[in-house]
């Protein structure tokens, strides 16, 4: 689910109640297919017991969000790869959107 503004028609992320682009409070949730491309990527090797991929993903809707790339060989990932959202549970139990590469 992404946030969109009825006043300026733009999407924004992370979600706010007031549109950060035009200032209107007429924002609403819209489902997204969660398809995008990797905009930037780094394999974090020394922050914990296992390496993980921190990334920015640009969705087809034109906005970019921070996430992890999962369910793949981390070292094979490249900027520009197509990815698809998958929901994983964070340590607190909440479902968070992560992405896996698609062919």
């Amino acid at each position, binding site marked *: 689910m992404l946030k969109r503004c009825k006043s300026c028609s733009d999407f924004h992320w*992370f*979600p706010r109640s007031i549109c950060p682009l035009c200032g209107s409070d007429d924002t609403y949730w819209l489902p997204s297919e969660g398809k995008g491309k990797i905009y930037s990527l780094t394999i974090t*090797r020394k922050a914990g017991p296992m390496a993980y991929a921190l990334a920015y993903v640009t969705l087809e809707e034109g906005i970019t969000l921070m996430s992890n790339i999962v369910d793949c060989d981390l070292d094979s990932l490249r900027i*520009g790869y197509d990815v698809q959202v998958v929901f994983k549970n964070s340590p607190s139990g909440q479902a968070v959107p992560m992405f896996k590469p698609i062919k």
Partner: protein
Amino acid sequence: MSIRGKASIAGIFEHPTRKAPDKTVAQLHAECARGALADAGLTLKDVDGYFCAGDAPGLGPLNMADYIGLHCNHIDSTDTGGSSYLVHVSHAAQAISAGKCNVALITLAGRPRSESSSGMKPRNWGPNVPDEPFESPFGVVTVNNYALVAARHMHDWGTTAEQLAWVKVAASTHAQYNPNAMLREVVSVADVLASPLISDPLRRMDCCVVSDGGGALIVTRPEIAKSLNRPVITIRGAGEAIKGNRGGRIDLSYSAATWSGKTAFTEARLTPADIQYASIYDSFTITVLMQLEDLGFCAKGAGGRFVADGNLISGVGKLPFNTDGGGLCNNHPSNRGGMTKVIEAVRQLRGESHPQVQVKNCTLALAQGMGGQLGSRHGSATLILERQ
């Protein structure tokens, strides 16, 4: 109404310690204040303005002003991370210019090394931070946030790990002459590339030191500065700016230095070609590249070529940088490197840098600070300083 020529940096002090488990943070602040006042030839009673940031324990400036023993008519605890102290210099100049302050004291101190801080640990900015639920679940820390910028820069312009390594090589070449520097060994590009990857593409030697310590500055009216026994160093231009994620329109190709630099150069009526020495915030090698491009020392995307082959080394290249060894090799106290950037710029203008790295007849210098996270939200501040 410009601040150009309206204020001078009359006192500087960089605490010699790099590890201080036996001193409190407040004590370090006070020792730095004392050192800068002694350097200026002024006393505690002369101070009527106080500036500090998030490293000052307590509520804004209240606890530290009380601890040091200050009576102030002007206070400012603007916090933009490591760039705060450059913002403070600019704000002090504005206060002096407006008649609100005569002698401003700016202090920084902290003990991240003794307190086991690291660029690989998540930072806690307190409750209610709105972006946190959408970023922290993904394991973002300081190093990988900056690594995202480096990875994109390599993708967009073919910047190489070797080019980034040259930034560290230059800093280490200067640090060898600094007896207080944490890392004094001169390293080669090969040495940097042999250091372990922390978060691709950043290696350990692409990252600044974690050091205890601090520093302080005295900013005052030029008339007062002229009565003291030091060369008069005047603020010629200043700029500050912040950049966030723009609602998801993320573009990692530039930083807020694009705006703070433009403001400073416009006010100073100068261009990058006029600058003889530059202190460039060096939390990571990529930070330096980005700021050099955004300030206009080279074209966007050309930062890799600009820093390569020793171009930042004093006596060798076109733009001597961080001649104290910078955050990469000398000091990055409290994880906030802006204070030491201003201090070395003032040393260069006074002719007080080590003779092996001193720029001849240095009259125009730039100090650049970058605070926060380059890959998400950060603050930039640019100062242009002149020796009268």
